[in-house]
């Protein structure tokens, strides 16, 4: 369980990283390495060239943009957990970060790495999707803004183009009266979620988003359920319909589990 040989570059700036990424064959980015290193060791992901973006200072920047906050892709889960990184989600990001894997993983793993990896049950894709975040993506052609819903494609699959790097995320600040919930069920502490429900309910901004992860190949918005919650009507029927669409195969347990995490998350934001 040792990787095959690869070349390694450790650029100091994002521009250098983008340039390096374009100059080699099968290359991969490494930030915290918490997913990539096991894949390399198992030789499931053969790469000729690894670009280490773990020492790029600008990836750890945060900026207050008024109604939004920019958080650099290189911020670690532990930085959010410890309150070192800002949390425009009124505590949601901090709570989610604290529940990712184990502390040792959280000290290395990054928010950008988690999203770029796009594990179907990962925390950050679900949380950022619920927060309506926009990924700031840089490539040799310049910068583009990609909504989370457009960035996430499938299992370990994003709409990032070859040579592009997530620089960070713009996350809207929730109002003081906004309510959020994060309900995760996993087989044991530290394991990926079997089911993860995340809700952002910000009535003052007329925003309600409900996300389920673990059902289907990527974290998904449940717009009909969110609409029902927003106008205060029962959500059971819409949950059932939307889960049907996400998981056509019959798995009574998983189905019930997703219903449970969603109902509990809805209960939390409803104050029930």
């Amino acid at each position, binding site marked *: 369980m040792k990787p*095959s040989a690869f070349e390694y570059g450790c650029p100091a700036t994002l521009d250098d990283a983008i340039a390096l990424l374009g100059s080699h064959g099968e290359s991969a980015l490494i930030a915290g390495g918490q997913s990539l290193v096991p894949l390399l060791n198992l030789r499931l992901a053969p790469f000729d060239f690894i670009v280490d973006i773990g020492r790029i200072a600008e990836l750890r920047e945060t900026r207050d943009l008024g109604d939004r906050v920019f958080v650099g892709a290189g911020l670690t889960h532990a930085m959010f957990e410890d309150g070192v990184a800002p949390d425009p989600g009124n505590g949601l990001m901090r709570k989610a970060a604290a529940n990712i894997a184990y502390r040792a993983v959280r000290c290395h793993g990054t928010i950008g790495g988690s999203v770029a990896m796009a594990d179907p049950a990962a925390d950050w894709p679900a949380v950022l999707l619920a927060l309506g975040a926009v990924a700031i993506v840089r490539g040799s052609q310049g910068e583009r803004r990609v909504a989370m819903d457009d960035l996430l494609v499938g299992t370990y699959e994003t709409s990032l183009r070859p040579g592009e790097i997530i620089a960070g995320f713009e996350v809207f600040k929730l109002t003081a009266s906004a309510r959020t919930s994060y309900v995760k069920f996993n087989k044991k502490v530290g394991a990926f979620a079997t089911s993860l429900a995340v809700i952002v309910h910000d009535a003052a901004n007329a925003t309600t988003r409900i996300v389920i992860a673990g059902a289907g190949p990527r974290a998904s918005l449940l717009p009909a359920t969110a609409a029902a919650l927003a106008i205060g009507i029962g959500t059971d029927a819409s949950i059932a319909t939307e889960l049907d669409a996400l998981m056509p195969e019959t798995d009574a*347990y998983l189905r*019930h589990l997703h219903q449970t995490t969603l109902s509990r998350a809805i209960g939390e934001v409803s104050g029930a």
Partner: protein
Amino acid sequence: MSGDAHSSGGWIGASLLRKEDARHLAGKAMFIADVRLPGLQDIAFVRSQIAHGRITSVTKPANSQNRVFTIADFPSLNVLEAGPELDAFRQSPYPALASEKVRYVGQAIAACIATTRARAEDLAELVEVECTELPVVVDAIDAMSPGSARLFENWADNAYIARTISAGDMSLLKNAPIRLRRRFRMNRQATVSLETRGVVAYWDARLEELVVHLSTQGGHVMRLGLARALGLPENQIRVIAPDVGGGFGGKNRLLPEEIAVCAIALKVGHPVRWIEDRREHLLASVHCRDHHYDLTVTADGEGRLLGIEGDVYIDAGAYALWPTGSFMEASMAAGNLPGPYRVKALCVNTFTVATNKAPMGPYRGVARPGACFAIERLVDEVALHMGIEPYELRKRNLVTREEMPYVTVAGLKLDTGDYHDALDTAAAMVDIPAVRRRQAARKAGEPRIGVGFAVYTEQSGHGVVEWSKRKSRVVPGYESANVRMLPDGSVLIHVGVQNHGQGHETTLAQIAAHELSLDPSQIKIRYGDTATTPFGFGTFASRSIVFAGGAVGTTCRRLAEKIRLIGAHFLQADPKNVHIEDGQVVSQNGSVAFCEIALAANIRQEMLPQGMDPSLDMTGTYEPAESAGVFSYGTHAVVVEVDESTGGVKILDYAVSEDCGTMINPMIVDGQVQGGIAQGIGTGLYEEIPFNADGQPLATTFADYMMPCATEIPTVRITHSVTPAKVTEYGVKGVGEGGAIAPPAALANAVADAFRDCKASFNETPLTPRRVWDAVQLARASERAAS
């Protein structure tokens, strides 16, 4: 003669901090991967991708001479007979590298060496293996159907051995008013020692011997196996086990990779090593558990258990491992089914079955976690059927103190103890009435609470009688110790057991300190090197404190007597009137320090009494006065919270009342109990290697293999009782395995208790959230169907 545990010094029963912890805490221990030798190269194995197939060709990459090896490169390697010495036990020849056939995913086919492990893996990727796939046998019960494919063509069916274990009067069961049939399954898992397996081997030209650094539980026995496999005399093999980071049984078998590494070392002329990685460990190291039970329990109208009948299937995997295979699983599972209860009759058909999975080996508790799970679940099912407290049903059936020694229907002689007291204590610790009040006060939508019990026994310190009854190829009936007092009076003790976390450097020093009236800091315990230690079998089967403790104690006692005689001579006193105390020989008129006596005995022989042999160096062996074993026992009581919607189980309280006889170091006993329970919780709730229909294992990394960690393991509350054993030194009994035996049963009973209203039955481990949810759905559905 047994030593008096309460004489001066008080070292027996003292919770001394462990001597070995300083180096572990400082990161200065030496495990196999820490062994660095000039010219060392790494080995990577090419492993089978398929579960069952005939090898048609293995093609080495170009220019890989002396870097890639297959079984064809070792024509003189011997294949060891393994399993019990019974004609009825079918042989399953297990070559060091696959020849002709592969029989499980992960079986080693070729070995590649290079200057680093990564380069060795590069080389391994270039080896081309072609196989003709054969039908796969994945289910132990289906494997016994007449139409099943067979692993070994010359066997009549897939059973290594099939035996019926029958005892007692079966006619008692005929008209039993209570008769319940249940199926139980304890799924397959790995042993998951923190340190994986590992070997470093090289030929020492000066000594003309093969030096093998091996992560093992017993170097002497492994040397015997290696000598036979390699065709070398034993005096040309030296096995060194440095710090061993856990074994749990898995390192008490000789595995093919270990033989292959040694064979390569003999060929290449420089040191080679193989460090098993975690994927290899989960894929191809010793697998364990995997018991299936189909049992009928009978009881009279008062709930007195009458008999247990049925079938036990052990899914033993593709090969028997040297020396003893996994044959003991079936006999011990059947033999422990009556538990500590007055069961009158037992009739169990056992099948030890070959399947296309990694070979099964021992794991902490060996067979008894499965047997305990089955009998303790059955007890609760009878109680549920009768509508009485499971605690109460146990009270009606448990052997009493007055009945001791009690021979169970299966022939196990429970020697000493008060099993009722252990049950009562555990019940009081978790407070059954308080749990019942909480259950009654539960509001709809709140999690459910349940309390569960499991009573266990732990046979330990068993010797010749028990192991020869089992037809064991190696009969670990004794242990030895070499005790030396050096000229300066310090003491060096070599033992044949192997510490792999048990704290031998501390407990054995406490015993020696007790016998020699010295401080444990003056005594060093050494083990783990066949070149320096007397022969011993190693550490397994909860045997070390009984056997090695006894060997150290009795040998030190003999040495102390010689010291006393020399001291009397120095003091010009009648030997009748001197005794040893605080490192001195003391008479009414004066004293002489051990260091003076040791100096004389070792380098100033002219000062010794006339005719006395010089030196203070004694070797002794020890076996207990009776070798059928002494039984530790206890009751585990656990309170769980179950989330009906998710199936998630959370442990709220875990209490243990146990008795392992005299405790040498109670803190270490607590550690053994707590550690065993951590693994028992793993078996009960988390750990599992499922296989698909093609025989592919589905948990080969920690992403899929759920290993309980600190967050999953509660701090266990432990109460000790001490009923000294009658046939061992100091009254000790073993304690290494007990913690791991009862948790699956206690947890399943607690979860079942939480769902008494719908009579849901939880009969398969691990109790994953999905299994818990499924069991409740099933019970609710049959409730609806009945109403």
